[in-house]
């Protein structure tokens, strides 16, 4: 495994976080802000106005060369031949047995593919990508250090960002991106996010990131940490690798079949296993739930039905928007309406609910 795990890595915005009084934590080997003013206040700022996240710890793998598309097609569950240049797509990377290596965002650029990977999986992913494309004419480059990634999210995100760019943001559709050059801000502007709100993810050169960060805050964005990022994505019913997804869980089980094209040709690694699982039935499934008794379900708590353990909580918190304890759980496929969550040896009833927990009003 990777060496030098002892010294935490810092993003180009580290000094900004310190000067804002952020509480810093170790996350996947990175020293990251978990909160500034408070998770709930930051959560609300994103739902009601705009929040600004430093997610520079995320990795960027670039696939370039004549076989770049073949390589990406082999590695990810989505059919990326259907992506236009300037379009991004959510996908999983699987092992041969269907278990999940990572969940990623694939950006199709004119010259290459940019694949955004989870920080905790950076070394593992790069090794997997290279190992499985050795027969192809493709370069797989780890360019994670070439980008600082900011997420500007919330109903006011567009209005704030428009102050700094000529790009016609109202015409930039969901999951589309453009490279902003020329005057104003230099960045890849992508209409994507991990909060359930409208918003953008912005790939800056490391040297440009701090200036942009300060400008967005002056224009009204609230700095928000990883704590709020987690409660926001959970309300939006989005998966987090290591919680909902891992090597023992397939993307079908985690409920992201929308990102899996089982009819893809040529096939991706794990496609056969996933097709078989779909035919024979899922071994487990991801459900959303609300806790009906007193208590908050947390990652790892057992889920029981009639006294039998039938799964576990993958993520859980008190939802700042709903004011209720919500969670995601991987449970036996026959579980329908409800179950009990074991909270510190106490059995607390929970009821399954459709996902997402929160859906924004579209204007």
């Amino acid at each position: 495994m990777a060496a030098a795990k002892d010294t935490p890595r810092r993003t180009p915005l580290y000094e900004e976080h310190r000067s804002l009084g952020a509480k810093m934590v170790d996350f996947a080997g990175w020293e990251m802000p978990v909160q500034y003013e408070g998770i709930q206040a930051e959560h609300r700022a994103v739902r009601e106005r705009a929040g600004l996240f430093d997610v520079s710890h995320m990795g960027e793998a670039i696939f370039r060369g004549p076989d770049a598309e073949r390589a990406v097609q082999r590695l990810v569950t989505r059919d990326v031949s259907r992506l236009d240049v300037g379009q991004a797509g959510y996908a999983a990377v699987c092992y041969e047995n269907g278990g999940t290596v990572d969940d990623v965002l694939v950006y199709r650029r004119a010259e290459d593919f940019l694949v955004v990977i989870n920080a905790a999986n950076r070394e593992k992913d790069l090794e997997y990508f290279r190992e499985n494309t050795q027969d192809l004419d493709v370069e797989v480059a780890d360019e994670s250090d070439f980008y600082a990634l900011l997420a500007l999210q919330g109903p006011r995100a567009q209005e704030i960002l428009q102050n700094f760019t000529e790009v016609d943001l109202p015409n930039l559709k969901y999951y589309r991106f453009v490279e902003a050059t020329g005057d104003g801000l230099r960045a890849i502007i992508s209409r994507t996010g991990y909060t359930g709100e409208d918003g953008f993810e912005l790939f800056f050169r490391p040297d440009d990131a701090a200036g942009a960060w300060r400008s967005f805050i002056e224009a009204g964005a609230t700095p928000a940490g990883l704590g709020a990022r987690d409660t926001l994505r959970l309300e939006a019913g989005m998966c987090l690798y290591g919680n909902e997804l891992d090597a023992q869980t397939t993307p079908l089980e985690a409920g992201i079949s929308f990102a899996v094209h089982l009819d893809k040709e040529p096939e991706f690694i794990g496609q056969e296993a996933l097709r078989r699982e779909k035919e024979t039935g899922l071994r487990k499934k991801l459900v959303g739930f609300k806790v009906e008794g007193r208590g908050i379900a947390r990652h790892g708590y057992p889920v029981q039905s009639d006294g039998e353990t039938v799964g576990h909580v993958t993520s859980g918190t008190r939802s700042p928007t709903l004011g209720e304890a919500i969670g995601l759980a991987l449970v036996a496929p026959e579980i329908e309406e409800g179950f009990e969550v074991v909270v510190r040896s106490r059995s607390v009833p929970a009821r399954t609910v459709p996902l997402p927990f929160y859906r924004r009003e579209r204007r």
Partner: protein
Amino acid sequence: MNLPQELQYTRSHEWVRREGDVATIGITDHAQDELGDVVFVELPEVGATLEAGNTFGTVESVKAVSDIYAPVGGEVVEVNGSLEESPEKVNEDPYGEGWMIKVRISSEGELLSAADYEKVVEEEE
């Protein structure tokens, strides 16, 4: 950091206010600050018997779950039921409205003065 001089403290970040043989117990300003927004507090029932040093409840923030330890041993004589509806009082007023339980003391635990507790916190940082 708010650290009332007249209170006693534990290494596990609880505070104790003594009035006769009754101890009022809560978590410190430092503890609530480390936890962040408190959203759930689980406390024992009146009549429960606590042993000094053992866990008697749980405080949860949005992000974290943390046990609370009994600074002294004894019988629980009162519980701050208002925390069920308003757990944020633990953040807003940890030594006042955010108190958790009152215990009739039957055995002593290992308690620190404000000055000694301050050193414990400094060592952690």
